[in-house]
């Protein structure tokens, strides 16, 4: 009995950091509609800042000996709040008018910058957090020991929740925040200065993340992996609670904290999958989370102008590019071919993601499931069935399509960020199956020795094979957009209600598009395996999904050429920059610069310039 009580209390204390971080995230999302992936970086900065302050502040003698510790915690939270304001002002403010979710890309840039800035400032070694003065040791609870500090953490959650609720009920600022969460346009129409409101919300949200990072110090410490470590968890909590709902985040943090504590007790191997399983179940049952509001069915705001077939100039440009790619083996050294294969594969992957993001209006955070799924299907066919490459590549396509059919079935009923998060959850579940099913998939030691058939083993030949398949894949996706199927898909994106009214089954069409995109991603995955000779679960993991998002957004989500332009720029930039020290800093800054310079993406910018030029000329 004592064991269960203590395990329950341990779960509560585990929920504290989760709640603090998630409440800040949900607050920021509720008001600004920004999905802030850099929120985990604020959490990490909170830990490091508090640690540095604790080390720097002198410790007075006597009863006030603990004061600097707590002062450092508070100061770190405020400091992170200020950093949040800085990020909001410099990076996000210029791009609030950009298409929805474009700000994602900027927050990816911020993550990279903070990563290297923290490495530069605090060094690579993990730092252990100091224990809290006066709260060392443990007390006895029903025959089991419970660390005293855990009791403080248990108390923090409800106190912060109460404070936030009080703030929202009683202050004018709080009322504005609630109003903006409910209806942003209306608040703007009533003459509220949104810029100021956004900045202040960013301040509070970042403060909470910083406080979360600082408060976990006595339980752990500060290290450079904290940001990625919390990113998935904080989104899970926010989404389960319902985006924008503080009380929801509170309930979700408790739910996750408790299920984890007891999961460890009864299913020790469930640690990888449990959180995402819970999220998937909650979202399938309640598509807007526990306390979230459903997104309006006919959300206005997709202001994309209709895609058009390429004009003459563009066709000539693409023909020249293709000719150059065909001639590449004759003019470039072998490594350029290796790099070109990488770029082509990523271009196909990005194009497949774009097929659902652009014309479909479905932003997926889990598209790597199909890239990796195709890669694994192809690799498994080779390793377990002895399939030749000519059979393994189609197996990759079919495998990814099947996976997409299953995942898509559950996801297409959801909208917006909830859709994105459910794809992320399923991708993580798929990842953990591959990761843990060692007998079949090799676990994280992967599958090795999967090389092209003899006729394609030569690098130049494999390059031509890749070029042919990638070109065909991209051309096919492009063609699909202009078919009645593609037009119906776009109609469903722009106005689901009207599309339904003229007889389009929007959900079914979106499902079909999802499967199609999955199949093409699977082809990219298959090509990738044979180029690398091996495959590991990393290819299904979150960073791979994020790579795809970055490429699509960088190129421009509202253009058909965006994904491959973005893939080319991103992959080459990364290859070039990763030769330098602190290359993540440079890459992050480059991404932020590109975001601010080209809010429609690079291809979008080129198209806009071209149209302006043409309009002026005529």
């Amino acid at each position, binding site marked *: 009995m004592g064991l269960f009580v203590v395990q329950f209390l341990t779960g509560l204390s*585990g929920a504290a950091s989760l709640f603090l971080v998630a409440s800040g995230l949900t607050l920021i999302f509720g008001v600004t509609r920004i999905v802030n992936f850099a929120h985990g970086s604020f959490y990490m900065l909170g830990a490091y800042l508090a640690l540095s302050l604790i080390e720097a502040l002198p410790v007075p003698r006597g009863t006030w000996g603990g004061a600097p510790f707590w002062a450092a915690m508070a100061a770190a939270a405020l400091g992170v709040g200020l950093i949040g304001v800085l990020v909001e002002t410099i990076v996000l403010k210029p791009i609030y008018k950009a298409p929805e979710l474009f700000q994602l890309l900027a927050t990816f840039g911020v993550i990279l910058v903070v990563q290297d800035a923290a490495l530069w400032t605090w060094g690579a070694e993990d730092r252990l957090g100091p224990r809290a003065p006066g709260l060392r040791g443990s007390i006895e609870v029903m025959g089991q020991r419970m660390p005293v500090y855990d009791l403080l953490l248990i108390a923090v959650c409800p106190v912060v929740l109460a404070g936030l609720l009080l703030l929202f009920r009683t202050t004018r600022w709080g009322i504005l925040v609630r109003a903006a969460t409910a209806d942003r346009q209306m608040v703007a129409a009533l003459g509220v200065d949104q810029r100021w409101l956004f900045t202040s919300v960013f301040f509070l949200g970042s403060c909470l993340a910083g406080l979360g990072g600082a408060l976990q110090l006595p339980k752990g410490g500060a290290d450079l992996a904290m940001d990625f470590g919390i990113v998935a968890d904080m989104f899970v909590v926010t989404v389960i609670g319902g985006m924008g709902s503080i009380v929801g985040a509170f309930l979700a943090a408790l739910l996750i904290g408790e299920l984890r504590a007891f999961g460890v007790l009864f299913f*020790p191997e469930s640690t990888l999958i449990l959180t995402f399983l819970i999220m998937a179940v909650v979202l399938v049952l309640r598509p807007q989370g526990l306390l979230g509001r459903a997104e309006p069915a006919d959300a206005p705001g997709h202001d994309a102008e209709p895609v058009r077939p390429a004009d003459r100039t563009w066709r000539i440009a693409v023909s020249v590019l293709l000719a150059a790619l065909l001639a590449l083996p004759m003019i470039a050294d*072998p490594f350029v071919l290796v790099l070109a294969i990488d770029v082509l594969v990523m271009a196909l992957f990005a194009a497949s993601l774009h097929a659902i993001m652009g014309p479909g209006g479905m932003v997926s955070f889990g598209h790597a499931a199909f890239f990796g799924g195709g890669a694994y299907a192809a690799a498994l066919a080779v390793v377990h069935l002895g399939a030749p490459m000519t059979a393994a590549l189609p197996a990759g396509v079919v495998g990814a399509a099947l996976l997409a059919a299953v995942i898509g079935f559950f996801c297409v009923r959801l909208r917006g960020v909830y859709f994105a998060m459910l794809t992320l959850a399923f991708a993580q579940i798929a990842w953990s199956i591959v990761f843990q099913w060692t007998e079949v998939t090799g676990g994280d030691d992967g599958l090795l020795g999967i090389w092209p058939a003899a006729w394609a083993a030569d690098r130049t030949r494999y390059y031509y094979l890749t070029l042919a398949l990638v070109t065909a894949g991209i051309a096919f996706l492009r063609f699909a957009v202009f078919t009645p199927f593609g037009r119906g898909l776009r109609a469903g994106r722009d106005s689901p209600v009207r599309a339904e009214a003229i007889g389009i089954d929007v959900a079914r069409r979106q499902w079909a598009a999802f499967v199609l995109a999955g199949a093409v991603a699977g082809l990219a995955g298959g090509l990738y395996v044979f180029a*690398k*000779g091996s495959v590991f679960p990393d290819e299904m993991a979150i960073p791979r999904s994020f790579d795809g998002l970055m490429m699509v957004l960088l190129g421009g989500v509202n253009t058909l050429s965006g994904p491959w332009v973005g893939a080319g720029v991103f992959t080459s930039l990364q290859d070039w920059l990763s030769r*330098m020290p602190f290359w993540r800093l440079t890459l992050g800054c480059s991404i932020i610069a590109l975001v601010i310079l080209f809010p429609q993406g690079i291809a979008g910018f080129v198209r806009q310039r071209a149209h302006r030029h043409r309009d002026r000329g005529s």
Partner: protein
Amino acid sequence: MTRRRTALALALGTTLGLAIAGANPSAAADPVRIGDINSYTRMAAFTEPYRMGMELALAEINEAGGAGGRMLELVSRDDAGEPGEAVKIAEEMITRDRVALLSGGFFSNVGLALASLAEQRGVLYLAGEPLADSLVWEDGNRHTFRLRPSTWMQAAMLAREAAASGARRWATIAPNYAYGKDAVAAFKAVLSELQPEVEFVAEQWPALFKIDAGAEVQALAAARPDAIYNVTFGTDMAKFAREGEDRGLFEDRLVLGLLGGEPEYIEPLGEDAPIDWLVTGYPWSKIDTAAHAAFRDAYIEKFDDHPRAGSLVGYNVIKAIGALLEKTGGDTATDGMIEAMEDLTFETPVGPVTFRAIDHQSTMGAYVGYTALEEGRPTMRDWYYADGADYLPDDEAVRARRPAE
């Protein structure tokens, strides 16, 4: 600060030409290029010491006139911890930089991906840090050698001590991925063979770097084991140690920590480091053999920092390549290098090490002892050097696990 600046200076050039022109007229031949790939950004705390160790060995060899009449040159790149990225970089090193061989790798998956590529492209790959047993066994190949004592070897070192302890009821806690699984499986196999009556009463599998330490500790305590075999590391180990301390898990129990005595793992814990854990590691300040003292002094002199386990591995990787080139007379044809590498014995700060012909694993060992705090600094006491050669399965078992060539 010095370390960071050194790292920067090193990285700025990417290519390290440390050859001292004119030091030795016989070294007029082209330098031998070594392609080093490592996770310099993802695991900086572990790979920076490795890089510094390499640099020291490289300087020593080149100042002495090179190896086999040729200077050594290092081409160093960051793989960001991604196998696909590592393969791409390796392709570039092979085709563009024309490296004579590949070395490095920190994560096992990167090592395995590089091994697979090395076999396909016919290039020698000397894995430094990757621990996976499968690298030289199930997935072993002709072109791949590995220096560091593998998961199996280090687990076997602890298992032998564990068998002598008399503890019956064992609980294990290991990160939920291949390294953790291998480490537990190897430990169980060796311990059960030596002590058939042991029982394993609990297994905990926290997600790597996401341990819910309080809950895990509670779950282990509930099983009432006599002894605990711990494979967690880094921040997981720090959290586990602290929660275990607070909740009294370690009282009157033998605790084992795989790699727990390596400075990379234990020194960041400072005064909070768990004491009296039986660990494998590297008590750098206490090994006073002439060879090790010379290495340690030179390292401290050069970097104003003390060596870590990674430094030793990096240093030995370059020394192994130096010895290899001495044996081939500077010839870098891959087949010749593979033949020379098999049964190659060379001197290291921890004693002579041999690359076994049977599975291409080196016999480099590790230090086994108990963790201790001395003047507030974590170190090891009652340690001894466990020679890797003594902790490998017999040849028949190895042949059963390694594909025939």
